[in-house]
């Protein structure tokens, strides 16, 4: 599903240049649930942003679902993001003046899906994350865990190939974190490829494979025995 070869990325701040990714190689097969770990400054968020086409690498190869991702202009990037990827952010990034339902149907709007179909699909995904009865509430009326579940429903709405989660539990307490991870595991069980960036060990161990990053390089990449989040809830 994802092939990455010799990926480099530097940030330039005035005269200083910061080499963040120093040649990353890894592959993700369809249906995997991978966590990317590392301390802050290790380059894990940068890697995720490049995978998410929110940012671009300086050099190296990135192939997503057999499509080489390169020379992206805004238009193509927007289309790929809409077709291939679903995002889950640490701070949820819901649009605060839209109801849960409208937030979830947003990617479908940009896909050009008609209103009626949009609402039906969005409702389906809200049911899936267990928030059907909250569909007309604004994000401000939801708890942190509920917000993240709305965000997950939104990420799923356009039926992407890959879900990218950037510290999905970073803003949540332990109990809610495990609930969210249980949801993510469930989605993975249905065959969706998911990448999770985290710096929490327990969260990482709820995935099937841990990639450890340090100073812009992968220092460890090994499968783990998945801990089912449901055991902790």
């Amino acid at each position, binding site marked *: 599903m994802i092939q990455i070869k010799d990926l480099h990325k530097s940030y330039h701040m005035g005269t200083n240049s910061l080499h963040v990714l120093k040649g990353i190689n890894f592959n993700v097969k369809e249906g995997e649930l991978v966590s990317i770990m590392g301390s802050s400054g290790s380059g894990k968020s940068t890697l995720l942003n490049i995978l998410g086409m929110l940012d671009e690498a300086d050099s190296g190869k990135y192939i997503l679902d057999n499509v080489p991702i390169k020379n992206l202009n805004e238009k193509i990037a927007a289309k790929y*993001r809409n077709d291939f990827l679903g995002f889950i952010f640490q701070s949820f990034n819901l649009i605060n003046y839209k109801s849960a339902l409208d937030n979830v149907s947003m990617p479908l709007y940009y896909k050009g899906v008609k209103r009626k179909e949009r609402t039906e699909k969005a409702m389906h995904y809200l049911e899936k994350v267990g928030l059907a009865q909250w569909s007309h509430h604004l994000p401000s009326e939801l708890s942190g865990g509920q917000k993240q579940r709305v965000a997950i429903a939104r990420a799923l709405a356009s039926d992407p190939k890959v879900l990218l989660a950037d510290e999905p539990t970073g803003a949540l307490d332990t109990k809610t974190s495990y609930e969210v991870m249980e949801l993510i595991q469930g989605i993975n069980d249905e065959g969706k490829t998911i990448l999770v960036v985290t710096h929490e060990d327990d969260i990482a161990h709820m995935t099937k494979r841990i990639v450890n990053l340090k100073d812009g390089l992968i220092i460890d990449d090994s499968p783990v025995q998945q801990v089912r989040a449901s055991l902790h809830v």
Partner: protein
Amino acid sequence: MFDLERWQEIFETLSKNKLRTFLTGLSVASGIFILVILLGFSKGIENGVKSQFESDATNRIAIWTGVTTKEYKGLNPGRYIQLKNSSFDGVVNKYDDFLEYRTKDYPIWGANVTYKNETGNYRVRGTLPDNQFIENADIGSGRFINHSDVERSKKVAVIGNKLKTDLFKDEDPINKNLQVYGMNFKVIGVFFDPGGDREEGQVYIPVSTAQKIFNAGENIRNMAFTVKMADNFDEAVIQSNAISEGIEQHLKEMHVVAPDDVSAVRVYNTLEEAEQIYSLIATIRAVFWFVGIGTIIAGIVGVGNIMLIIVKERTKEIGIRKALGALPMSIVGMILQESVFVTMFAGLFGLIFGLGLLELAGPYIQNDFIKYPQVDFNIALTTVFLLVFAGALAGFVPAYRAAMIKPIDALRDE
């Protein structure tokens, strides 16, 4: 632009952000409203000043005749040039479009006027109804001569206030008969004149009556016109000179007078007084243009500022939308479409409200110096479009910049 889904999205955004929509709309609407009221009052003041001073600003042309001093086409010098009704009609026909008021006069100096036991010598002047305005005669009671008086050569008289005091004392002269050389004239009005006693010691009678009773036939002694007000003084000078020269030439041809004979046909026009009034009006106009343009600029800056704030506030939303697959230009388009819609709607609302207020309150404002406050609808509409366009332009730059930011920067937690 007319994508239904897009409009739905926009209305949803607007209705979910009621406060923002309301504040944007309010500032635009009140800006336009103030501008309309300001423009209306400037027009009102211009109208007021104009009507206050218009009589002084009139450009008056008076024509007398005399004796020829040059031989011309076999005719000897020393001929008296007699103006006729036809001379007047000829001039009026030719210059009708430019003339505001017109009169032909047949006066008698020192005519004997009697009422009961009082008698005196006064100027009796046969004239036309328009002379009231040319002479600035103010009717104190009764009325001035009208067209029917002239047509039927009625024996009616409008007397000056001095003559009234001399002959009638405290009596009300209206509908009383006075005698001119023993002929009865019914008094129909009393007038005042800024010219004072000299002017107020006159009797106006219809010109046709004067011609009959004084055996003048078709003769008239002089004629006078006023020229319609021009847009500015320079134009007034050009217009007035052209008309006076034209009239002079016309009369000289008609009465066979050498073109360079200056004493036979004399045309005077007075414009000096008018210059001050024209320059006063020009100054008022300039001041209000200045204020109006200032208001528009302030409005543009205001709308621009609102747009900047809105875009700043929505940067994160823009990032989210981009991460979900929105095209940068669709985001810019959405924000602009939204803001153009709001400013246009609010602007038109302010415009209609302002116009409505002027329309309703205008007639009640009858101050000496403010009259008929009104706004040129086209100017007001242009202003609305200008503001909307400027607002869109002011919003476009930050919106475009925001849409070009990488979503990752827009989403970064501050």
